């Protein structure tokens, strides 16, 4: 039926079907393949062993981001194991003839999920994959974007396709106006708090509603970035004027008449009126407050005005045990006010919150203030070389440095601490990243996820603080 109303996900799926089996297993075509040093070496090796080539060189955009140092980069990578991994990517790029590679010393280098959109390499209507779970970020552009494992990286390299089955569709509607100081990060943390970290398992999420439409492209990327933290492989937002405006003039985006033609198609990338979803969840934006996680899973989240929950009140025994374990790991007592929790370190960065808008927002809080005495380290790690340069043009680096922050080179950094940037055991960190798992930012480290504004406010106060009282 040609005129059956379709969801955005239906449209993207249908447009990429190369073949479909009777049981629904399909071969879907991949338009953009983002590659980084951690999940690609074994895939390149697999190709080599079988004597296979890359199917479509131009689909690949590669960078080194997870292992790169954020200081003294001209001295190279000190850790020999990290260095070998980055050099392996350098070599594979040459060996396989990949054209678009932003290596460690390229001015455009950065976190893979920041540079894709920044370069216009992520376009509406595309399928985008990467050997990285936060590939969901790119869904902000009405693209079908999801993370894959290394075997699938090799599969896409060799065939430009993936074997996949269609997911269920989940519509998350956030209506109304978010209050002052309530950001995209708070919206997505509130969503995860509501549906849980497995709430989106097996689903592709479309984020919609007036509060999502009101977000900038950066904000939409923050929301889609954390779709994976709700268990969904993909998150997406319909294309609109903002999407098209953002892409104009970007290096990899079409130009001139071709751009106009593309833009006409892109405006069709939204769910049709009457399209049906397997499940719908509604949130009221006005009810969302600045969020802070208290535990070791992103669903363990509460409002800055709240307190650490009491496991004794939880009736589900598995949940209660998980809460107890989390509080023990986090070194927190039930009932403690979130605003009374003192911190040691602050990390502003990661593919969730390291874009220019994030840095502007954090700088706005920091301007003319200084970090508290108990803060051992506060660092800002721009998502890409271009974000860093733009921030410097605007003088944001000066604001951060004057306030006592460190201003670092772009990369994943303390989001997962594969390089030197890590928490020590027991250290407590306000982090704008996306995962507060045990040991994520360093063995024994304690991570609290917050927005850039809330991280900045925590740096100034030395403990979590309600950014709305500072604005």
């Amino acid at each position, binding site marked *: 039926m040609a005129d059956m109303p379709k969801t955005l996900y239906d449209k993207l799926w249908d447009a990429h079907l190369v073949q479909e089996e009777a049981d629904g297993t399909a071969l879907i075509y991949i338009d953009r393949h983002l590659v980084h040093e951690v999940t690609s070496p074994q895939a390149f*090796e697999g190709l080599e062993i079988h004597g296979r080539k890359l199917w479509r060189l131009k689909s690949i955009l590669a960078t080194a981001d997870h292992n790169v140092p954020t200081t003294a980069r001209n001295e190279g990578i000190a850790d020999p194991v990290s260095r070998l991994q980055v050099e392996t990517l350098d070599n594979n790029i040459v060996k396989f003839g990949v054209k678009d590679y932003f290596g460690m010393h390229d001015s455009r280098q950065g976190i893979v999920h920041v540079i894709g959109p920044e370069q216009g390499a992520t376009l509406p209507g595309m399928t985008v994959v990467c050997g990285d779970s936060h590939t969901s970020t790119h869904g902000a552009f009405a693209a079908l974007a999801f993370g894959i*494992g290394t*075997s699938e990286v090799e599969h896409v390299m060799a065939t430009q396709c993936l*074997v996949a089955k269609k997911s269920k569709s989940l519509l998350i509607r956030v209506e109304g106006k978010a209050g002052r100081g309530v950001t995209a990060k708070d919206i997505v943390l509130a969503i995860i708090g509501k549906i849980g970290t497995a709430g989106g398992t097996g689903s592709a999420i479309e984020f919609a509603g007036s509060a999502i439409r009101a977000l900038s492209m950066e904000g939409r990327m923050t929301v889609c970035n954390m779709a994976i933290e709700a268990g969904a492989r993909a998150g997406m937002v319909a294309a609109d004027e903002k999407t098209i405006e953002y892409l104009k003039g970007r290096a990899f985006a079409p130009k001139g008449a071709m751009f106009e033609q593309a833009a006409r198609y892109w405006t069709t990338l939204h769910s049709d009126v009457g399209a049906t979803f397997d499940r719908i969840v509604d949130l009221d934006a006005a009810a969302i407050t600045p969020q802070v996680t208290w535990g070791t*899973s992103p669903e363990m989240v509460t409002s800055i005005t709240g307190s650490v929950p009491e496991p004794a009140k939880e009736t589900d025994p598995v949940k209660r045990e998980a809460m107890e374990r989390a509080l023990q790991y986090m070194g927190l007592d039930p009932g403690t006010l979130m605003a009374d929790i003192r911190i040691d370190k602050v990390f502003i960065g990661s593919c969730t919150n390291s874009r220019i808008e994030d840095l502007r927002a954090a700088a706005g809080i920091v301007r003319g203030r200084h970090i508290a005495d108990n803060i051992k380290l506060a660092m800002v790690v721009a998502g890409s070389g271009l974000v860093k340069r733009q921030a410097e043009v605007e003088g944001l680096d000066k604001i951060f440095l004057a306030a006592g922050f460190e201003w670092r080179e772009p990369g994943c950094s303390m989001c997962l601490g594969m390089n030197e940037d890590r928490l020590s055991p027991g250290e407590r960190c306000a982090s704008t990243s996306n995962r507060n798992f045990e040991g994520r930012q360093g063995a024994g480290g304690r991570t609290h996820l917050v927005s850039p504004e809330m991280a900045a406010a925590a740096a100034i106060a030395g403990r979590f603080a309600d950014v709305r009282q500072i604005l």
Partner: protein
Amino acid sequence: MDPFRQHTGLVAPLERANVDTDAIIPKQFLKSIKRTGFGENAFDEWRYMDLGEPGMNNSKRPLNPNFVLNQSRYLGATILLTRKNFGCGSSREHAPWALQQFGFRAIIAPSYADIFFNNCFKNGLLPIVLTELEVDHLFNIVSATAGLQLSVDLDRQTVRVPSAQVYIFDVEDSRKQSLLNGWDEIGRTLRHSDKIKSYETARATREPWLFN
């Protein structure tokens, strides 16, 4: 890929929900450019008392006696019984590599994170889904019976307890066939090369900006 058909082995219970891939194999071990050598560092932060780094002699490291996989009754386990949303977080395929190289052939849980679930099938590691209730039962049986072995039969889609209790599980047919036969999926997809090429031609007409 190694095929999976049937397997009988010792079960180890990991009584946690939301076990993430950072816990299964911590990031410092992801710096390897190889596909092997991850087994000794599976669950590294839970398994050892000290901080693990690549290149350490793991046989000399102090073990955490409280961690279930270190307990003598579960040594040599090849089936992992665990709770919901197993394998959440990072997409790292190093997680199934680590579990498999540790010695596991199958996992039983009420649910898995999508990418992890997918990655298991690519590596001949079978992730079995049973209901919360069935998993509860199994946890009870395992804790009550030292040395309990389960038999998994992928073709029949069954998990059998020696007392003759049988649990049936679902598995998508395409995944099942691939695992039973140990197929090379890339080779199978490349048989459709002509289809992929004609798709590209059609797509280039519809969205020419993608193929410039």
